[in-house]
């Protein structure tokens, strides 16, 4: 056992070293690239102009070794930083495939199994919350988008009487709220306590996203609206025939923001939902890991394998989508940032 451990350890270390060497090589290559890029420029300057430009070239050449040291340190720091972020995630993924409880710093499963995932898929106590998570995320995203686009579109109608009243009506909710307990009492009256649709309704309206949407709509040229109006389009027709098709990118990034919020929501469930079949997966994961309330499994896996499989299931949808949709994940924030 110990031998295997050590072997695994050295293997993984070797792998890590290899990665580092590779990245460092890349760093050096980049430096060389830069140096190469500088040289033709310098050459061009020499050709084009007279001797005046020669001292400048010398300055650049004199500085080159300094740049190199800085770059290597910089790349090394960022390799470490990347590892700090990636290693815990990798460890979780690798341990979710490992049948035995996990000891020490091993980065590869030594008894590979799919038992953890099979348990989640076959135990209704765990599968039901996972399903709830998917349902509420989809419904919450749709509702959120409908509200944000409708609100954002109407708030852009500057000639509409009462527009500023509507914007203050929304802004007040950003500054002041009833607080956790009055909200709870209202939801109780509405029969939304212990009901998974609370997750959808709670996130259905987000004033911040509505304002982002409004800012985006402002960028659509006014002449398009006027042309449509002249052609006899009603406001609703303009909305879904012109505004929505032009805002696909904004819809994607704001939709993603809603989806992430609903999928990742844990505190709403903690406050409003107590029965397990209405809970979402984040809540179930927490109950499992923190309270040790683990369902029995017919697969030969340790408890921690099951926990790690649960964590992977809870992050998988966005981790899969993220590399492809990163643009949309980030634009939402940048729209806000640029406006600032």
């Amino acid at each position, binding site marked *: 056992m110990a031998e295997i451990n050590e072997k695994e350890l050295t293997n993984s270390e070797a792998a890590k070293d290899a990665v580092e060497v590779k990245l460092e090589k890349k760093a050096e290559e980049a430096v060389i690239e830069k140096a190469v890029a500088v040289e033709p420029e310098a050459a061009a300057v020499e050709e084009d102009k007279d001797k005046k430009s020669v001292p400048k070239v010398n300055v650049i050449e004199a500085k080159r070794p300094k740049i190199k040291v800085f770059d290597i340190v910089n790349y090394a720091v960022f390799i470490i930083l990347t590892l700090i972020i990636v290693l815990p995630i990798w460890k979780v993924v690798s341990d979710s495939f490992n049948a035995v409880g996990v000891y020490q710093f091993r980065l590869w499963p030594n008894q590979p199994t799919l038992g953890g995932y099979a348990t989640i898929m076959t135990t209704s106590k765990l599968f039901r919350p996972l399903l709830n998570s998917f349902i509420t995320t989809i419904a919450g995203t749709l509702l959120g988008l409908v509200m944000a686009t409708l609100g954002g579109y109407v708030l852009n109608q500057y000639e509409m009487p009462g527009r500023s009243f509507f914007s203050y009506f929304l802004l007040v909710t950003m500054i002041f709220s009833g607080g956790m307990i009055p909200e709870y009492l*209202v939801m109780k009256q509405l029969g939304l306590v212990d009901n998974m649709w609370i997750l959808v309704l709670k996130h259905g309206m987000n004033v911040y996203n509505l304002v982002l949407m409004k800012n985006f709509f402002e960028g659509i040229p006014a002449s398009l609206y006027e042309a449509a109006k002249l052609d006899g389009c009603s406001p609703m027709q303009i909305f879904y025939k012109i505004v929505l098709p032009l805002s696909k990118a904004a819809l994607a990034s704001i939709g993603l923001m809603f989806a992430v919020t609903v999928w990742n929501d844990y505190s709403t469930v903690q406050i409003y939902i107590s029965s397990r079949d209405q809970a979402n997966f984040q809540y179930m994961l927490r109950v499992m890991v923190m309270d040790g309330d683990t369902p029995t499994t017919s697969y030969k896996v340790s408890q921690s394998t099951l926990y790690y499989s649960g964590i992977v299931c809870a992050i998988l949808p966005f981790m899969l989508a993220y590399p492809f949709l990163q643009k949309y994940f980030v634009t939402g924030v940048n729209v806000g940032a640029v406006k600032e």
Partner: protein
Amino acid sequence: MSRKKEKVNVNKKPLGMRIWNNRGFYLMFLPVFIFVLIMYYWPMLGIRYSFFVYKGRDIHWVGLQHFASMFSEPEFWIAFRNTLVISIVKLLLNTFVAVVISIFLNEMTSLFCKKFVQTVIYLPHFMSYAVVAAIFTLFLSTSSTGMINETLKSWGWIETSIDFLHSTKLWQPVFYIINLWKETGWGTVIFFATLSGISPDLYEAADIDGATRLQKMRYITLPALANTIIIVLILNIAKVLNIFEPVFVLYNNRVFEVSDVISTYVYRKTFMTSLPDYGYTTAVGLFKSVVGCLLMLGSNWASKKIRGRGII
């Protein structure tokens, strides 16, 4: 500009006609209006319970008694202090590290590596606090499956396992580190947006003057970020009292004195008490909302003063 002109023209028509002309828009706003009314404004009516005793079916007026007992309750003041300490330290730490990372990442010569690092450091932001707490609780656990303790022991750095999350001394530092891991990368997004707006001319001019790399970072990049840093701080200072989920997922009853914040205090007093007095917890919530509102208006004022534009 053109919109303002339009407004002047339209104003000449009678109000009734303008309302009738915009009927489609009112209809479209109706669902939003009703939704906000129910989900946000109706709960505001519940604030009246801060002046009532609300225990089960027993509801009667007590005036300001809840506020008096709240301010004389040491547990409340502990929660209040922790809220300020935890949120402010977290905010300053996260912003500082995010600034350092963005400045140095901006110096990276290879565009591919830059994009790659950005992609990676944004990742943890998309995990929920429940997941992050689960990961680190498992890693830091004192049982034989706790990776960090076992690794440190095998390297001979420590003799016995350290109970990171149950120690009043270590809980806050561990909390800050976990939050750094989760949110710092994402915090750099806004700084990158600013950095991409710096004119390359500045760097070229500095090159000609013979400035070194570090000098350029110190005298060009950092000053360019100063305004954004202040904005980020102002925006977030308004929300310091709202902290709930990050603390709730990591705290436990052995570290209440260093981890209990106002929201978790309200939660505990309501949902973990056998016969809760909704009146008292509503009063605590009202205190939080009012202070939060003042902070928001204050930072809005500060923001207007600094950049000529409010945050709300």
